[in-house]
């Protein structure tokens, strides 16, 4: 029974077609969907590393690289860490730690001399979070971490952190203690009712769990915390007149927020030295704790907008930010109803290039009561209804948004849609002062002249120096002098250097 050649060739053709149909029709896409560990090839691997990963040692290699990244990190060699983070995530996109640490590192740890972080990297950090959560859709962590960057680092556009926290919430492994944060995010987005409801929901769940397992002390603790949170929130809702407002009878009683308080904002910018500015201003609120957000940025960069940039602009991770863009964010602490801050951008030319790309730069002042501390909010309300400013209160700086969840795709919600909310707009104190490139670099006409720009209502007399005006700005830095630090100069920075006019 010797098979004939034609019969063999027939079988050959049949098996070939059969396997191809299977591969192309059924296997390929299923594999891609379920077993593909993500990226194709990392171009920046060395030959031995390529070989390793080719033979399937991706996770192992990622582990080795991550250890190396850790040592760079310890040495403070942050720039070296960045590509390694990227490589590790390419090699082993299931390593949640690398994503989480990498995001945090990118968003927080590229800093200048004064420990101000380089915010041009934030879109990259968020992109890493997006990718990480796509790769690891079954765990809450990267959803939470991405939400946290919105909530804590960007500290604005709270609808974004709400969306991410809600997605984290859907994952079963979400830590109970971290669930509370969504209620806070709701409040910051002026979704007070949703915040309350979230607390109630958590409370009901925890209480039910506790009923079932009374011997678990942790559950008892959680229940207690939620009770307290609810308690405080309801008290606040009453005291701030929020409930009355919702009922429509706010005018009948006087609440803490009833009479909007005029903060009397004024500001001035003095360019002391090239790239060194002094920012001064008034803020008629006595309690300590108000921080005015100060931004120095290119005036015409299309990626920048009012006191913000397009944080959400990256969908694919790009670890190389726009290097010739300038974007600084700092804050002025209000004490004695004034703020006075010296901002030195001269020592970090890579972070603050003040490149030729821009002719003008803006110094922006931004105060959003939604981000304010609770005791300030007790007067101003969740949305700043208890705050006003004759000159600079604006309601067009931030629009109110909300992410509306779409259908459930399997276990998790999909198809989120961004929607504008029809609610009272955020009441924000905002203004900007323009400086030309020559002014900020003290070039051309400005070599010996000190450029000063100020709001028209600025009252210089309120900045006469008295001893009681010396404020010790609390920082987290060590009190030991830094190498190269000049205490006298720093003292001047707070009080104003001699020779600058007018005083």
């Amino acid at each position, binding site marked *: 029974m010797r098979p004939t050649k034609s019969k063999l060739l027939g079988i*050959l053709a049949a098996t070939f077609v059969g396997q*191809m149909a299977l591969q192309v029709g059924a296997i390929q896409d299923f594999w891609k969907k379920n077993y*593909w560990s993500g990226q194709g090839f990392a171009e920046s691997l060395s030959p031995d590393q390529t070989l390793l990963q080719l033979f399937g040692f991706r996770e192992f290699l990622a582990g080795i690289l991550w250890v190396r990244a850790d040592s760079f990190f310890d040495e403070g060699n942050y720039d070296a860490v960045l590509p390694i983070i990227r490589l590790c995530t390419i090699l082993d996109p299931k390593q949640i730690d690398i994503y989480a640490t990498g995001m945090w590192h990118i968003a927080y740890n590229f800093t200048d001399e004064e420990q101000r972080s380089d915010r041009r990297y934030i879109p990259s950090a968020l992109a890493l979070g997006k990718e990480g959560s796509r790769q690891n859709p*079954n765990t809450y962590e990267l959803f939470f971490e991405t939400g946290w960057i919105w909530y804590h680092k960007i500290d604005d556009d709270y609808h974004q952190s709400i969306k991410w926290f809600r997605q984290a919430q859907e994952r079963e492994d979400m830590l109970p203690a971290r669930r509370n944060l969504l209620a806070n995010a709701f409040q910051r987005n002026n979704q007070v009712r949703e915040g309350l409801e979230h607390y109630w929901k958590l409370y009901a769940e925890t209480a039910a769990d506790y009923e079932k397992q009374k011997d678990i002390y942790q559950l008892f603790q959680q229940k207690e915390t939620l009770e307290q949170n609810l308690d405080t929130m309801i008290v606040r809702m009453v005291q701030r007149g929020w409930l009355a407002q919702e009922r429509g009878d706010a005018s009948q009683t006087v609440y803490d927020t009833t009479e909007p308080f005029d903060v009397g904002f004024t500001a001035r910018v003095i360019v002391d030295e090239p790239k060194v500015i002094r920012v001064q201003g008034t803020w008629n609120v006595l309690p300590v704790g108000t921080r005015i957000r100060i931004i120095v940025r290119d005036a015409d960069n299309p990626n920048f907008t009012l006191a913000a940039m397009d944080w959400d602009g990256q969908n694919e991770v790009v670890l190389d930010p726009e290097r010739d863009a300038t974007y600084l964010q700092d804050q002025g602490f209000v004490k004695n109803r004034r703020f006075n801050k010296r901002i030195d951008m001269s020592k970090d030319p890579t972070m603050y290039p003040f490149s030729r790309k821009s002719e003008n730069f803006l110094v922006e002042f931004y105060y959003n009561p939604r981000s304010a501390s609770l005791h300030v909010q007790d007067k101003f309300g969740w949305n700043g209804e208890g705050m006003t400013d004759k000159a600079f209160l604006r309601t067009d700086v931030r629009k109110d948004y909300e992410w509306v969840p779409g259908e459930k795709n399997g276990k998790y919600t999909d198809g989120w849609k961004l929607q504008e909310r029809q609610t009272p707009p955020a009441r924000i104190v905002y203004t900007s002062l323009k400086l030309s490139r020559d002014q900020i670099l003290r070039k051309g006409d400005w070599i010996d002249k000190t450029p000063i720009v100020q709001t028209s209502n600025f009252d210089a007399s309120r900045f006469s120096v008295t001893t009681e005006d010396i404020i010790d700005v609390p920082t987290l830095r060590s009190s030991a002098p830094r190498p190269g630090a000049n205490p006298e100069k720093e003292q001047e920075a707070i009080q104003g250097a001699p020779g600058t006019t007018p005083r």
Partner: protein
Amino acid sequence: MRPIMAIATTTVGEAIRRRVLLIILFIGVLLLSIIPSLSVLTARSEQSTMISTMYAVLRGTSALIAIILTIYMIPNEIERRTIYTILSKPVMRWQFLVGKFMGAVLALGLMIVLMSSVMVLLFYIFQQPSPERLLEVARQPFFYFLEMMLLAAVCIFFSTFTTPLVNFFLSIGIWGVGTVLSPLYSSIASNSGASPIMQSVAKFVTGAMPAFSNYDVKNPIINPGQVIENEQKYFIYIVLYAILYSAGLLVAGMVIFDKREV
């Protein structure tokens, strides 16, 4: 059928006594057993790294064994003239080829079972997983076995007309490409920038070449929690794929081997 089985069992007996293979096997087991101590590399993903690295060692070692075992199979028979005594008996050439292939597959199965047992044992000792988890971890080696069967078919096919040295590099090359075939395809398919022509070429090439990457199903095992629907169906498909593709290669080998002067 009887001659095929006789040839297959004899081949197994010979394979498990080949010193080169035993040395590779030993090195594989050795590597496996040092992996648990390397797992400190990642604090939290210790289990993932441990499993994936063990899998990589298992896969690499098996592939090397598969290639070395099969490339010499037919040339050795010719060189030692045993093939004459066999072919002068009522044994068709295709029976000889199939017998050799089955012997290789059986031998590979034995060696993979041995290595997997060591792997599972180590995993059990160092991680103390639940029985379900242990079972899950033990699943991937079965698919590596299918992959190695396919690789053995590739080598046997080449050995019907090339020398062992050429065969070695050819097979390693094909395996190398085959293991990255699906990732490559996936990259191209998901790259919106790739032209439609490029995409269909990629589709054809990945459809024609042996896609060893199909058997790399470790992702959900390394990263538990992923829900895969219809996984059983996929498993059936890839078993079928291995059988079809190997059969095709064997038939092609038969066509060539039948005309070959030995």
